[in-house]
């Protein structure tokens, strides 16, 4: 790719897309930040960069966003249902506009529940999870377009953390600060394949420049694989919190199974009666207290899906990326957590101590 290559980053209002767009901008490379809607533009708008509405379910917006673009780094996810269709829409627009390289950010979740040392030769495997299954389907569509002549690179990161991460930084910090999280003995002893965000971005941008990359899949993993319990403990220490409680696996399994139908019912009610629920919460003090209590409990109890992830004993190998792209992750867990906590402080997460049930 020439230095003048204009790169469209989809999902630039999100965690990974935001980082990719910012890094390209800070390196002085031409970049266009595609955001789902203007309300998602707060992050890229801090830079004087080209921002365009780019809802992956809206072909007209994609067509507009694709003008003059030579390379696409597709980080937008959308809802589970729109992952595959949205990816197809982006691919179609890129193909029609003669894009020279398409990088699709996928996930190691496509390997399903396989354990052991896993590299790119392992097959994708469904685990009846909508996110992972749709990601597999999205990869399949990518290969269809590759065979049509759109040069494709697929990148599979595992657990990405760091500043701006919602799932593995903000949400986990919330659980830890709320004091309801812990060490789940026997239930979270699987391997946590962590990659710090800037290492992932380095890997993506190496793949964007390498002549060897098109037609390849790369796993991009970080330098350390602690267990999930170790990750919780080290994050808790970095937040300077009292030691975590230890929960036995039977107890946490029971609590998780108990909470799951309640979680589904609440989600259902919230989707249908959000306005009414908000109104009740605003007018009834006692109802508000109960809702807050339930919400905190829900947020701080692992889901069935989480326990599957926490128990998985898989190591994702990024030897291929190292050899072919020169990829070398450099941020260890200590440094990554230090950055994450500094960022959490900056956004006000620790300015007030959380109390149980209060938010």
């Amino acid at each position, binding site marked *: 790719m020439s230095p003048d290559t204009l790169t469209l980053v989809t999902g630039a209002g999100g965690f990974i897309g935001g980082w990719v767009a910012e890094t390209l901008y*800070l390196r002085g490379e031409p970049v266009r930040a595609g955001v789902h809607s203007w*309300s998602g533009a*707060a*992050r890229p708008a801090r830079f004087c960069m080209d921002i365009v509405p780019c809802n992956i379910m809206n072909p007209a917006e994609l067509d507009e966003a694709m003008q003059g673009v030579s390379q696409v780094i597709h980080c937008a996810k959308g809802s589970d249902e729109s992952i595959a269709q949205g990816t197809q829409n982006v691919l179609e627009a890129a193909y029609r506009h003669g894009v020279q390289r398409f990088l699709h950010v996928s996930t190691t979740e496509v390997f399903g529940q396989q354990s052991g040392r896993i590299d790119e030769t392992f097959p994708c495997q469904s685990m009846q999870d909508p996110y992972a299954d749709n990601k597999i389907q999205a990869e399949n569509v990518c290969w269809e377009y590759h065979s049509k002549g759109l040069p494709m690179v697929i990148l599979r990161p595992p657990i990405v953390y760091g500043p701006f991460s919602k799932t593995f930084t903000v949400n986990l910090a919330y659980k830890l600060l709320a004091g309801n999280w812990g060490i789940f003995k026997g239930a979270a002893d699987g391997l946590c394949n962590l990659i710090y965000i800037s290492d992932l971005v380095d890997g993506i941008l190496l793949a964007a420049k390498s002549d060897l990359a098109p037609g390849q899949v790369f796993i991009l993993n970080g330098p350390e694989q602690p267990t999930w319990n170790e990750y919780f403990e080290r994050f808790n220490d970095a937040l300077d919190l009292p030691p975590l409680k230890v929960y036995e696996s039977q107890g946490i399994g029971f609590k998780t199974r108990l909470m799951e139908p309640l979680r589904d019912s609440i989600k259902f009610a919230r989707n249908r009666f959000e306005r009414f629920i908000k*109104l009740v919460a605003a007018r009834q003090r006692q109802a508000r207290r109960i809702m807050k209590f339930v919400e905190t409990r829900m947020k701080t109890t692992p889901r069935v899906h989480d326990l599957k992830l926490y128990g998985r004993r898989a190591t994702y190998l990024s030897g291929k990326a190292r050899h072919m792209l020169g990829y070398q992750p450099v941020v260890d867990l200590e440094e990554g957590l230090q950055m994450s906590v500094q960022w959490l402080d*900056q*956004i*006000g997460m620790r*300015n007030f101590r959380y109390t149980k049930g209060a938010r």
Partner: protein
Amino acid sequence: MTRSKVPHIALIGCGAIAEEYYLPALASLPEIMENLILVDENPSRLDKLSAKYPVRRKVRDYREVQNEADGVIIALPTGLHALVGVEFLSRGIPVLCEKPLAEDAARARILIEMAHQKETELVVNYLQRIIPHFAMVKQLLASKTFGSPLKMEYVIGEIFNWPTVSGFYFKSDPSTRGILRDRGAHAVDHICWWLGGKPTVISSCNDSFGGSEAVAHVEFERDSCKGKLVMSWFADVPCRFSIECEKATIEGEIYDYQKLIISENGRKREMIVESPIHTKLDVAREIASNFVAVIQKEERPLVCGSDVLESIEFTDEAYEKARLMNMPWYRFEEVQDVA
């Protein structure tokens, strides 16, 4: 104007704030709705909103209503408030302006001066002053119930999810945007109002690389009180304030409108502020009906332009003194070049 005449109000700007806030509030005043004029240059917005809220008519150019409106609500991007506001005020037409009143204090002064000259009213939607627990804090501080304030902390952390139609926050002139100017308008107004005037900005930093900042920290001081404002658009964190006074500490959650926590002599107690105002829509209805009464010369504005001028001056000062935050997660050499 007499009570018998129902005022003709023009709602200028049919973006998200009109749809989510003003129209639902005005809908509780059927006579006003029947005479409402919607103004927006985008015909699809006019069609969408008029389909939901039957109004008297809809026009694309605000100049068409200059001889017709008895009062106007300005719900336009901030950069247009002063420009459009002056046109109506100069004709003696009362204006209700969405917050922030203007993009800087100089423009706010022009609006205030024009209203004064023409002996008309400039009402501003700094709605949070009428929210019960904020008003109670003002009362407690003004009466020195717990002595003078010594330390104030104010934290707002919420993911930006306002369904902005125009995206003006993120694509207009950098001087008109960012969390401090936008969401901060309320927070800064509280701080100035509670402390009885504009504090001095001691330090200010944000994460703007030339665009609109999404995180801002401001440290300030007024008399014996030092304070810190922390704002972010990146995650939902507890939005709270805390004011340490000589004899007690007052704490509150931004969105729990009727409760304060008072810590005194080592004990905490809840202070419940009874009020019919529970939701933003309740506040919007108060603002809308007050504006109607202001047009009819039956009430004074709940909040007028000059009330909030100091908060805009404070914001200007915070922007003037702002430096780039320390963000070690960006590589230093890259950040240096851009900053």
